[in-house]
């Protein structure tokens, strides 16, 4: 049966693929679906992941146009490197220059669960590598340099961060509040260090005043952070529990750092 191929911006990787353990009709049906979908869309290969299955199965077309069933593949050996212009069904109408191994050796199982191996080079080697990447939750973006990745993502309609409710983000807007608090505290710490070399009591009083204002600012920001972070966390229904500890910890770490600066300042700067 021809299946719908998952395309950008639908997130591809929620989990990485799992090895096939039971070789049964469910697997054979999946392989037939992959073949039908490849033929219908005139593709050079597909990973089961691309049609929404989490099994570690890929089907690729060899030089003779035959479809090879590759179950539980592992890329064992490689040599040489080659850079080519690649396209993939996940990003329709997009191409990118990707560097991959020129020659590869892959071990895998066939539909009878028999251990097999194949050696590939040229375009087939590239397709197999790209499909194996899919089974581990990656697209060719992961093979790009940081600059190439940014440039590619800028060309995409929704950028690179296509979210999913099923997993935790680890970069948040709230991190910017933490950054501001840290910057303020760095300046406060610098003010404290500078005060150790100053003897003018008027100047010291002024420094203390700025440190006090700074600390009030940081405390207020910390409160804002605490509540905003929880609000932001609730947008991620999948994992609010794993964030709450992080939020409390981050807020406490800020207060701890601030306390140290202010305690030292109280003894050495305050007059």
């Amino acid at each position, binding site marked *: 049966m021809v299946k719908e191929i998952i395309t950008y911006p639908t997130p591809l990787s929620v*989990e*990485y693929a799992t*090895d096939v353990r039971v070789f049964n009709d469910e697997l054979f049906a999946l392989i037939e679906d992959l073949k039908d979908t490849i033929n219908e869309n005139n593709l050079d290969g597909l990973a089961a992941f691309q049609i929404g299955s989490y099994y570690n199965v890929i089907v690729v077309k060899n030089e003779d146009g035959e479809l090879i069933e590759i179950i*539980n593949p*592992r890329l064992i050996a490689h040599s040489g490197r080659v850079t080519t212009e690649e396209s993939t069904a996940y990003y329709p109408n997009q191409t990118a220059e990707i560097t991959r191994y020129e020659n590869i050796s892959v071990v895998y199982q066939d539909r009878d669960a028999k*251990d097999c191996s194949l050696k590939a080079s040229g375009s087939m080697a590239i397709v197999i590598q790209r499909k194996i*990447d899919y089974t581990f*939750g*990656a697209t060719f973006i992961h093979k790009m340099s940081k600059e190439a990745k940014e440039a590619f993502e800028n060309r995409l309609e929704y950028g690179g961060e296509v979210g999913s409710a099923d997993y935790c983000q680890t970069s948040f807007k709230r991190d910017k509040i933490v950054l501001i608090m840290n910057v303020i505290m760095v300046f406060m710490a610098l003010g404290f260090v500078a005060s150790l070399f100053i003897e003018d009591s008027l100047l010291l009083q002024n420094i203390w005043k700025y440190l006090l204002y700074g600390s009030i600012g940081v405390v207020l920001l910390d409160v804002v952070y605490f509540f905003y972070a929880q609000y932001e966390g609730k947008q991620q229904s999948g*994992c609010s529990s794993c964030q709450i500890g992080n939020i409390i910890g981050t807020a406490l770490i800020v207060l701890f750092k601030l306390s140290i600066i202010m305690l030292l300042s109280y003894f050495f700067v305050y007059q």
Partner: protein
Amino acid sequence: MARLVVLGGGVAGHTTATFAAKWLGSGHEVVVVTPNAKWNWIPSNIWVGVGQMTKEDVTFDLAPVYAKAGITYHQAKAVSINPEGNESSDKPFVTIEYTSADKAGQSETIEYDYLVNATGPKLNFGATPGLGEGSQLGEHTVSVCTADHAVHASEKLAEAIEKMKAGTRQKFLIGTGHGMCTCQGAAFEYIFNIEHELRKAGVRDMADMKWISNESFLGDFGMGGLHMKVGGYVVSSKLFAESLFAERDVEWIIGAHVSKVEEGKVHYELLDGSTGEEEFDFSMLIPPFAGVGLKAYNKAGEDITDTVFAPNGFMKVDANYNAGAYENWKASDWPRTYQNPTYKNMFAAGIAFAPPHIISKPMSSPNGTPINPTPPRTGMPSGIIGKAVAHSVCDLMTKGENAHLHEASMAEMGAACVASAGKGIFDGTAAAMTVYPVVPDFEKYPGTGRDTDYTFGEIGLAGHWIKHILHHLFIYKAKLNPGWTLIPE
């Protein structure tokens, strides 16, 4: 007054003995038999191996700690177990051979009411020709498995750095020295710590670094891999590891069984059946682990080692050893109480218990050579199992032999691992990973077999700080300093 004998004083044995001594008080006796005079926080051996810590930083004398805890301590190795006693007595006993300088070679028997086997592994260097003889490290490679090995490794590393400073390129080959190794994590830490030190020494450009391992994909770590949340994305540990290797310019050979080690060269066989050779100037290859070779005898003095121990020398416990092929493996195959099925007063903890099967996908080359990581059961799982076994034994001793046994299945247990990738207060890095459960449960969590909400990882400086704090925290705990019971395993 009953007697608990704990064989081994590593993470599992030490945890079992110290908790048992605390819970049992003076009403019962706890005896520890371990061939070592010192306790070693093994994870930090990596830092000894790159000269960033000394042997003294990662070890301490056991005798004063056991004296403080009221534990009877014999610096000796266990040789055999007689779980039915002998012809003259029904009381089970172990035969030990002293290793301390004053009594070296002397034998003694110690009767027990309960026995916990936590002997850890025999470092089976002898399994690979040229890697060593028996449990002795050979002359061609180095190791970080013990503190002394790590000191030796750091000396060799210093020599290699001097050669590079003098203008001679050096080839580094780090990884696993056999197709059936575990502990890839330790080798992973070591290669990146070396890389970090070479950069610090300004000789990184003079070094060719290569990883060799029995994993079928980079980032398997003997656990079938895991997925990690990195920078807002969920990626498999394969991508995470591959990018780290590429970023640090470390090449890799995977799916490899090291078949022979010579001076400056290893021979290996790959999963696809091909063979190859790799030259090196400096190499650290982790040996495979085996049981320590304990024998068991019945009342009549007949050898019953096969009844008590699995063929690999690890003690049989309440696991399903007849799970069959990969497709039949279940989370429930894994042991829960670690009680020996034949002799109910014997338990095994840590590496010493025989796992029912491996965790990663079993693989072998077309020549029939098995090449797959064996299950890791060190660190946090070892400590948790040790504590659960201590709990069970204490209940059996105080509440009677029908007491409920405590459970700690690796298929229901999460574990945290912090893998160092370079030591430094400001430029250190470590990958902090949590995985739940350690053994995938494909019935409960279809797909990866793991709970995606509790399996994640990050790499960065904070990870290094955590690793460093853990170093001090666990040594503090193992020394039984005030509040030690509050520190988790």
